[in-house]
């Protein structure tokens, strides 16, 4: 399942920058097959530099962001003795998956300003502008979103998970859970010094349903009637098969 064939994506470095990322990925395409149960991506690379090494330590931050979509976060309240969904807040855009791995604690590797500019940490990656007025505590809703998705492994903050050697070679592994959604997963690598981003590099990892999964999903969206009839045909056939098999068993 895990193809660890290194695909060297980019060897071209712009000569203007002092330090550049040269990146390798274990895979740049993830296929959701019928027996998909998650996957691990190995992200590794080197820092290419044309100037001598500086005294300030270099830090590396890797982020992977799944496709973003708008969401509704609902809160349950007690109404007439039972817990029902009551207040709701729309989040304009939240990634379906987000992982951030760093070579040092986040607050050392990245300043607050740089975080805001590049939207690196999880709270920054979520966009919620239009919180309705009747909700007093909008932050609680985004916190809940992060809490729930962190628990299910969809949001990961992996401080110190990037291994950095001699300020040149780096590598990290990020595990993707089984309940992935399809789409382009934007992968970014930041090089920081003293909390300031000095270089960044971006690439895309594509996650796709393939084979039967692809076929069934497409059919259910594009030809829902045929899909429904096909489901019924299978059910009728199975029901008939069971009845026939049972009769044969009893006769023999």
């Amino acid at each position, binding site marked *: 399942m895990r193809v660890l064939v290194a695909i060297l994506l980019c060897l071209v470095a712009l000569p203007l920058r002092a330090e550049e990322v040269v990146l390798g990925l274990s895979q740049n395409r993830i296929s*959701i097959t019928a027996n998909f149960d998650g996957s691990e991506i190995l992200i590794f690379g080197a820092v290419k530099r044309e100037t001598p090494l500086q005294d300030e330590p270099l830090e590396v931050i890797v982020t992977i962001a799944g496709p973003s979509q708008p969401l509704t976060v609902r809160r349950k309240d007690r109404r007439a003795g039972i817990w029902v969904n009551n207040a709701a807040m729309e989040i304009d855009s939240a990634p379906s998956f987000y992982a951030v791995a760093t070579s040092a604690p986040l607050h050392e590797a990245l300043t607050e300003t740089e975080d805001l500019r590049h939207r690196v940490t999880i709270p920054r990656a979520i966009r919620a502008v239009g919180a309705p007025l009747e909700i007093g505590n909008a932050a609680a809703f985004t916190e809940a979103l992060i809490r729930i998705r962190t628990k299910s492994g969809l949001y990961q903050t992996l401080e110190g998970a990037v291994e950095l050697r001699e300020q040149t070679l780096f590598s990290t592994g990020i595990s993707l859970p089984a309940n992935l959604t399809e789409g382009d997963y934007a992968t970014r690598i930041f090089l920081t010094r003293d909390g300031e981003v000095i270089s960044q590099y971006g690439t895309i990892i594509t996650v796709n349903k393939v084979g039967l999964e692809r076929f069934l999903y497409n059919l*259910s969206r594009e030809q829902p009637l045929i899909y429904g009839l096909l489901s019924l045909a299978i059910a009728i056939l199975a029901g008939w098969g069971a009845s026939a098999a049972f009769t044969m068993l009893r006769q023999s």
Partner: protein
Amino acid sequence: MAPIRGQAVLAKRCAAALTIDMYVYLPIAEVSVHAVLLLGLGGLVGVLSGMFGVGGGFLMTPLLFFIGIPPAVAVATEANQIVASSFSGVLAHLRRKTVDFRMGTVLLVGGLVGAALGVVLFNYLKSQGQVDLLVRLCYVVFLGVVGGLMFFESLRAIRRSRAAGGTPPPRRRQRTLVHTLPFKMRFRTSGLYISVIPPLVVGVAVGVLAAIMGVGGGFIMVPAMIYLLGMPTKVVVGTSLFQIIFVTAFTTLLHATTNYTVDMVLAVLLLIGGVIGAQVGTRIGVKMKAEQLRILLALMVLVVCGKLALDLLLQPAELYSIGAVGAH
């Protein structure tokens, strides 16, 4: 003892399968679930349905919630699975000529109207974020009522069978509301001459439930047919199954075309387990006493009901939930 050896081999194969990674990614539910878990669930509910003669939808759908299938997908897919089990059942009843097609058709007309109403209601509540609540409330109420009634009825039956030898035939009421309403119709197989209004109403009610709860509604339809319509017990099950096929098939199509929530992979896995389980269950059922079976079933229904009720009454550990943007 061929069947027993067969079962032992099956059990060995299941154990072997458990040790291998057998996760299946469900394309519509978009979750990855262990295949053996689904086959096992299907099998377990199949055994129970074979033992007790119920469809098992009312147990399966809450079980699917517990293992993390989104409620909308669980409800729609379960409807699809019931088509299979009731089709299998109705074939057996056709051979014994215990299907009242006329009554079935009247119930069906009501059922289709009810199913359409149910899906509209389901979609409206889905947009309000309350579909989960409605489904759970329906379950608590109906499981509680049916479980409670069955529990007390079987307790009485056990006492009666201890007091006297056989069980007396149920008392038939002579004239009720059913006989005074207009639009009378003759149902030959059932030996009835009654108004079409009560069967239509029963049909609509069961149709709504089928769409909302993802059940065939047999556990409501059967008592209604016996006690409200006064149908003879021997034609009740076949007729109920006959109309359930069409109502659940219609519900499946509606869910597939409006909500895209029927998961074929999930349905197939549940089906395979269910079909095998039903065979095993029927054999176990033959060896047990009817009242004991019913009391066991009643207790199980009440346990599921209690669990769902507690979920509604106790403060949940996580107050927040994430959903797609409501208004489409």
